[in-house]
């Protein structure tokens, strides 16, 4: 224990030194007189880097000693799940191109979806009626979200912005007229989500950052830097204090952030490829991720490590989106091979595979009351499964 304490503290010091040097490195201009200084900085940097790496591996070693059991081992005594019969109960047709994203309304039956051709549609999924439609000025609308009040939707994509549209009930009114530009990034918008109210939006972007915005004023409240490449997804924690969120990116990392301070408080890097989707476990103690490496993984926040991998040799194509059932026992994954795989979270086994879509599944969300889940696909349709 003492060893680890010391390791931990030395690691902290090394990391701090690295940070200082990195800042100096990034600030120093490349003019000839500074060349020797540069060389010195580089050497110190390299030295610190190798020290940091060795400390990191030592810490991992010590941590591994405490890792005495896997999740599926503990779950051995749990009763297995029987056969699941889930079918498509609704098919929503209306998009003219690939469906990229969707979100549920808190009323448990309405959804908003966005597609590659710039259309954003609000549906009453129960009746399959379209209630609103907006045409965005850009293509590839990769992110959309329903406001908690149900009175507005947010969306964005290749326009690098996130815009909020209040849902007008006047059939003649053009929704685009009341559009409000909230977020501004320097690259495409990959995901957006309202926090607990209509007043704040969290966004992630291809520019490698996440940001928290005030909807009313469009002001940037907090920005989150730390990913080394495009950030592809995010999810807000359902915790009591409601102050954290997780993001996943092309750098294969999943980072947990503190919304108040902007600091990255935890980081997980076990995936072998881009992380396309992250979703919190219902209790908020863990989260699942889906990646192009064709696996889904479960990370426990308190144990600070990966605790389960959901994969099968016959599953070759990447996971585009994941979500949990209400009890957290089932994990649904939408895959690029047009299927949905249903996993037993505790035992790590695959419970069921669902066919139906005719092109890759790009988005998947379970409804707020857990009665069904919805998928959007590149085959231009959305399906509700129950």
């Amino acid at each position, binding site marked *: 224990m003492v060893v680890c304490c010391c390791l931990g503290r030395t690691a902290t010091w090394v990391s701090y030194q690295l940070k200082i040097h990195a800042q100096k490195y990034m600030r120093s201009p490349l003019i000839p007189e500074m060349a020797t200084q540069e060389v010195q900085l580089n050497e110190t940097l390299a030295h610190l880097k190798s020290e940091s790496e060795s400390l990191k591996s030592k810490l991992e070693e010590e*941590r591994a000693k405490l890792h*005495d059991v896997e999740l599926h081992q503990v779950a051995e005594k749990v009763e297995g799940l029987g056969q699941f019969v889930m079918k498509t109960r609704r098919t929503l047709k209306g998009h003219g191109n*690939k469906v990229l994203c969707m979100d549920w*309304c808190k009323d448990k039956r309405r959804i908003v979806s966005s597609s590659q051709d710039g259309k954003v549609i609000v549906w009453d999924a129960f009746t399959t009626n379209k209630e609103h439609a907006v045409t965005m000025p850009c293509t590839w609308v990769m992110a959309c979200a329903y406001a908690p009040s149900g009175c507005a939707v947010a969306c964005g994509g290749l326009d690098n912005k996130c815009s909020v549209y209040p849902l007008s009930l006047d059939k003649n009114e053009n929704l685009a007229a009341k559009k409000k530009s909230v977020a501004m990034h320097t*690259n495409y918008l990959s995901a957006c989500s309202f926090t607990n109210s209509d*007043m704040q939006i969290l966004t992630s972007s*291809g520019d490698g950052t996440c940001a928290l915005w005030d909807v009313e004023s469009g002001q940037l409240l907090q920005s989150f830097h730390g990913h080394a*490449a495009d950030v592809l997804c995010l999810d807000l924690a359902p915790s009591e204090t409601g102050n954290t969120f997780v993001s996943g990116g092309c750098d294969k990392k999943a980072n947990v952030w503190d919304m108040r301070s902007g600091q990255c408080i935890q980081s997980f890097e076990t995936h072998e490829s881009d992380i396309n989707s992250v979703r919190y476990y219902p209790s908020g103690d863990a989260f699942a991720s889906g990646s192009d490496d064709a696996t889904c993984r479960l990370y426990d926040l308190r144990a600070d490590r990966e605790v389960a991998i959901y994969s099968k040799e016959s599953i070759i194509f990447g996971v585009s989106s994941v979500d949990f059932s209400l009890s957290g026992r089932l994990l649904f994954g939408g895959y690029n091979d047009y299927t949905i795989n249903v996993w037993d979270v505790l035992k790590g086994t695959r419970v069921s595979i669902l066919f139906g879509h005719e092109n890759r599944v790009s988005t998947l969300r*379970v409804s707020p009351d857990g009665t*069904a889940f919805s998928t959007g696909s590149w085959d231009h349709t959305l399906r509700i499964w129950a």
Partner: protein
Amino acid sequence: MTINTLAKGGWHREQMTCFQKMEKVIVAMQDPDMGMKMRNQRLLITVIPHAMTGKDIIDWLMQNYNINEEESLHLGGFLVQYGYIYPLKEPRCLVLRPDESPYRFQTPYFWTSTRWPVSELDYAIFLAKKNIRKQGELMEYEKERYSVLHKRINHTWDFVVMQAREQLRASKQRRKADRIVTECQEQAYWLINRPPPGAPNALDMGLERPSSCTTRMTLWPLNAMICCSNTIILSVRAYVLMCRFVKYSEQYQNHDPIMQGCLPSNPWISDDTAHWTMNAALVPIPTRLRVERWSFSFMELLSDAMGRQEFMMYLEKEFSAENLCFWQACEEIRHGESSKIVEKVEEIYKNFLAPGAARWVNIDSKTMDKTLEGIKHPHRFVMDDAQMHIYFLMKKDSYPRYLKSDLYKSMLSKAIVPQETKKSVFPFVRRQRHSSPSPAQAAEDSRSKGPQAGSD
């Protein structure tokens, strides 16, 4: 710490992962011991060696990956779609048929991952060969592309024609079986890399990622290292943590509609919205499951509008309702409009914190001092500490007592347990699906009815 340089060669890395995995499967299929049994297949009058039937492929996949026939057909279909296996009988149709249709493994020379990016010159030579071999053998779209290429790389056209003639001459000297095989291989390769218009493009991978090629530094988060050392110091055993997942799932299992079904029926399956009506935000009598859920955690009670209402009634009896009111007011600051923060903070101070306030909350002096100091420069999180203090006070004290109280127990006993809807006698008769007022409509209605006392 890692310094990542993202080279431009990172284009379509996602595709590469898929290809590598597919290639692993293909290699396993060709393993001399565990792989597929190949034999000679008859194609009209020619005998083609090292071929297999569609059915063989499906059977092998089923056995080796422990999957059912549907999944095996689906997976095998991708192997054909991406050109790792090609059909001999209908070479233009890259589909896996679960019958006696003959298939062959594509030679690695023609794997999409090997010969990438596709060369225009190669395509021109391929089309030229087809054109020379038999006039009119080119399809419409191929003729168009041929003429486009002719214009574009006109300067090397002599080379193209010469290469095409050479390759045709060489192939004439081979056995018919080999010739057929080579033609099929090439055809399959070009069907994938230059698909006919309207056909699904197997290589469509969406937007390029990552989009930026900047060098960025990632620092192993400072806090993460501290977290690591803390975890070790606290010595939390993994077993305890894993058990929490099991416990949570067991507790919520009955509440999970996908796993246990829901009463009276799942609206998506039966087209009956009774389940939603019974569980609306505020109902005269809630369902049993809902009331049970309030006892799972304090968060569950507070996130349910009705639960909050009941809890408020209980606190009023105990003369500690100001705690919940204070908590709700703080939530409104945290999640409300930035412009209203100052006025809301003042309201809270007036009602809850000022000495002699009407609904004074009992916070410890340290937190109170810190909060009062913070109020001088109000911001969104100024009430956080005080709010958290009161939250945990309610959670540790009032909440457990509420669960033991008569108020809760009587609510639990009179709660409804809906009857399961019997499956309709005529299952094909679909019920009418009724639409519901949209939340936007509801909000507009309440606005037009005039300002009401805010019901929290």
